[in-house]
């Protein structure tokens, strides 16, 4: 064991004592502490992710929801230490393998980081359609990945074929094809297979279904559910589509203005969202039963990364905002055992921002599902 490993174990133990959207009880696979991404820009330093603390439990599906530009893609990239230049990631990210010592992700050498990525934590990108090299066959993408990680190519390709058929694709046909010969949905599934070919423990997905039609999104979600069970995967599902992820996720984390503002079990969030923004977001999600003119968007504009409001970042748009909100940044408050929200007045939120479209008495999972259809 190296010095670095010892140090990371210590910091990890130390940091579990902190509060925030964290809890010491569950078996964690990833712990993110005080993660921050900033860019130097002409107009000043722009912080596109601010003090995010998050625990990912082993074997869960956690949905990270936010509007575009809320910092959720940064959070996804951070988990693999893959924030694109010139973004600078700081903070602590600790990965706990099933067996073995905790890994300090941001302190890894290039060689070890290469091993961590794809072998332990894998990722499916937003630009799924363009994640394949257009001048190379699909098979070669699998082979080169196995070779790059000194894996047994034969056994690896056997796994690939199994993954592909688990995803309801004809393995040989897909492997023999060029990326452009596959439909959007097929390419997406092939990409998921590619991301799982080295048997990672964690799969991070950044808007994996954004470009697909509703039917295809739906079928991919159910395939993901199956994959998780079969491979004991932990999944982080990043999306702007709250109803979509609500069907799949065990827990939901909501991001607003580059910060995490609420986290809790899916049911809890859907029924008793405690942060005014989450409640507004739930109200704004398209309800297909409602006439079009009743569709609402959240009032006000999402904040500028260079000029984030002081205090609670949501105060310019929040109906509950008072002087405290303008002056101070709220910490996470315990709403329920596993439910936390970063809001001074969360107790009043339900009254101030009543749910409009969602039938709260019905089972939230099904009601959301129905709406989405």
């Amino acid at each position, binding site marked *: 064991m190296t010095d670095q490993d010892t140090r990371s174990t210590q910091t990890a133990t130390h940091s579990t004592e902190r509060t925030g959207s964290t809890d010491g009880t569950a078996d964690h696979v990833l712990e993110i502490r005080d993660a921050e991404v900033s860019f130097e820009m002409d107009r000043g330093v722009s912080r596109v992710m601010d003090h995010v603390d998050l625990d990912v439990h082993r074997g869960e599906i956690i949905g990270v929801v936010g509007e575009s530009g809320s910092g959720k893609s940064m959070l996804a990239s951070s988990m693999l230490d*893959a924030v694109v230049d010139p973004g600078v990631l700081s903070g602590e990210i600790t990965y706990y393998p099933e067996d073995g010592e905790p890994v300090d992700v941001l302190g890894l050498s290039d060689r070890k980081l290469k091993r961590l990525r*794809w072998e332990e934590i894998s990722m499916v990108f937003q630009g799924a359609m363009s994640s*394949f*090299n*257009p001048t190379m066959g699909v098979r070669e993408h699998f082979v*080169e*990945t196995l070779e790059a990680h000194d894996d047994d190519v034969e056994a690896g390709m056997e796994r690939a074929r199994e993954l592909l058929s688990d995803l309801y694709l004809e393995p040989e046909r897909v492997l023999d094809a*060029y990326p452009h010969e596959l439909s959007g949905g097929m390419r997406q599934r092939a990409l998921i297979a590619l991301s799982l070919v080295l048997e990672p423990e964690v799969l991070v997905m950044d808007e994996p279904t954004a470009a697909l039609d509703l039917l295809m999104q739906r079928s991919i979600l159910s395939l993901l559910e199956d994959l998780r069970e079969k491979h004991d995967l932990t999944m982080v599902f990043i999306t702007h589509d709250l109803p979509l992820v609500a069907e799949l996720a065990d827990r939901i984390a909501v991001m607003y203005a580059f910060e995490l503002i609420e986290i809790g079990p899916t049911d809890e969030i859907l029924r008793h969202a405690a942060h005014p923004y989450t409640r507004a977001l739930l109200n704004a999600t398209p309800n297909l039963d409602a006439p079009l003119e009743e569709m609402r968007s959240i009032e006000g504009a999402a904040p500028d990364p260079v000029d984030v409001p002081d205090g609670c970042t949501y105060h310019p748009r929040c109906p509950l905002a008072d002087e405290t909100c303008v002056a101070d940044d709220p910490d996470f408050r315990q709403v329920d055992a596993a439910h936390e929200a970063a809001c001074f007045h969360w107790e009043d939120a339900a009254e101030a921002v009543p749910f409009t479209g969602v039938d709260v008495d019905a089972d939230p999972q099904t009601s959301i599902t129905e709406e989405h259809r």
Partner: protein
Amino acid sequence: MNWYLKRTGQALFTLWAVVTVAFVLAWNVPGSLVDHMVDRIVQNSNVDPEIVRESIESRLMFDPEASLLEGYLTYVSALLEGDLGYSFVAGQDVSTTLAEAVPWTLLVMSLATLGMFAISLALGAIMAYREGSWFDIANTFVGIVTTSVPYFVAAFLLILWVGYSDAPILELFPPRGRRPPRVDPGFTVAFVWGALRHAVLPALSYLITGYGLLALSMRGNSIQTLGEDYVRVAELRGLSSRRIALRYVGRNAVLPLYTSLLLSIGFMLGSSVVLEQIFQYHGVGYWMYEAIDATDVPLMMGTFIVITVCVVIATFVADVTYSMLDPRIKSGDQGEAY
């Protein structure tokens, strides 16, 4: 298959069109073509004009007195038999003259093209990887400057350089002619080496003035490709940077340059008329200039047709190889390559 048929059809049509245009031009040369030639020959000798006239008419590819259609048909059927007529300037059949000249022009062109692409692709890719560095900035500047120099100016400068250099350099890069004197043609080391040495300066004239634009396009394409999602995903998948540079960035950045390749082939063939004159390099371009200078119509038509055939073949080859490089082409994803 359909795709090849279409391309072949296009190539054949182009050929036919060129042959016809060549004929129409020749047919319409102001004044009597034959009179013109007879005058020219008689001026320099005291042969009986009538004998000259008969001899010329017997060697023409068509009877200038016949109807347009008749003339056209005789001409085309002669062409199909490989008969391009008789050249007075060269003193032999046009087909013989050109068959002997074409390889030399192709030698210069292939040297220039291969060298230019090798240098430009490598340079452009390195510049892209080091975007914004002094290496990038300096090369961008040099590239723009050299691109704005005409090839014939480069040719003169090269000749000057060789002329003022020491004997070994002059010996190495002869500025005149196309093959070493006193060496028998054939696949001997001495002959091939000599031929290559003679081709260097003309090829360099193209290369120096042409690589810049190509390198800059390669640089731009590479920078664009480096920003593609698939490059980022490849990095995360842990592929070696060498593999990413070659298979991901290089391969995809080269594709759009195929257009430039085609354009440069056409450009070089056209420019060979001037360049081969400068270097007294007896290739196709040299003969075209001589033909124009002497109003040697059969030779003019012959060089015109041969140059077009070369362009058509080059285009066809480029087309076919493009479809090998870019798998999207044949299934009609993008329709046309360029």
